[in-house]
């Protein structure tokens, strides 16, 4: 067992454990903090996959923006500091069966595929993944149109979020 495999297994255990805490813990602020642990584990995985830019974006956008947004939303929507009652709804076992079936189905699909034990091809020393990504995002032959559409989508989402959450005069 190599060092990379040991690091992967530790990271996977951290990711799955903290994800389980996200969906089961009753206190929502704690759930958001566990989500940060999960996202950080995913960033470690991206770094292990040589996707440095994705790892940094994961930390900056997901942990720095989205998780903080969640914590603010939890703080703005709580009647009292302690959450009362069960965190799961009555049919939660049905959800558990559904997600277990999903996992089983995915594993069943995967074990019939012949590319499973593929190992990663070596990256050439002159290959620059971040430069290639930058070129792909702004090159007209590649992904400049989805890139621009994504920026328009973000602008529309921003305007929509402000409009939806805006407190009009006369509303309590």
């Amino acid at each position, binding site marked *: 067992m190599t060092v*990379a*495999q040991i690091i992967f297994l530790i990271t*996977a255990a951290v*990711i*799955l454990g903290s*994800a389980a805490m*996200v*969906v089961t813990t009753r206190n*929502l602020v704690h*759930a*958001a903090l566990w*989500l940060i642990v*999960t996202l950080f584990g*995913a960033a470690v*995985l*991206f770094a292990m*996959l*040589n*996707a440095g830019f*994705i790892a940094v*974006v*994961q930390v900056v*956008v*997901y942990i720095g923006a*989205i998780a903080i947004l*969640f914590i603010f*939303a939890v703080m703005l*929507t709580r009647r009292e500091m302690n959450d009362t*009652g*069960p*965190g*799961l*709804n009555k049919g*939660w076992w049905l*959800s*558990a069966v*559904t*997600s277990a079936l*999903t*996992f089983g189905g*995915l594993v069943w699909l*995967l074990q019939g595929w012949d*590319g*499973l*034990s*593929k*190992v*990663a091809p070596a990256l050439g020393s002159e*290959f620059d*993944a971040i430069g290639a990504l930058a070129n*792909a995002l702004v090159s007209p032959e*590649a992904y400049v149109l*989805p890139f621009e559409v*994504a920026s328009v*989508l973000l602008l*529309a989402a*921003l305007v929509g*979020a402000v409009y*939806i*959450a805006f407190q009009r005069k006369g509303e309590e």
Partner: protein
Amino acid sequence: MIPLWWYLILSAALFSIGLFGALARKNAVAILLGIELMLNAVNINLVSFWRYNDPTRIDGQVFAIIVFAVAAAEVAVGLALVISVYRRRNTVVADEIDLMKW
């Protein structure tokens, strides 16, 4: 070296945990947390396929970036909706938001 299926099994497990959270939680904010877990599982899949297939083709990373942008937009609008609903109905429990239920 880590075989590809380790990443795939991990992301399948993460996706299933997120699915459970999105289906079973009562609080609307917690449902959005489950959706975030599912999106992250998809991203791990995309990046590992990029790395294990042909790293000179950068498509997998571009897909992951687009997923980031869509996730940010989804969270912004979703949490704005939750806050707006909380202001009008004073609840964030998904079962009690039943105005459109016949």
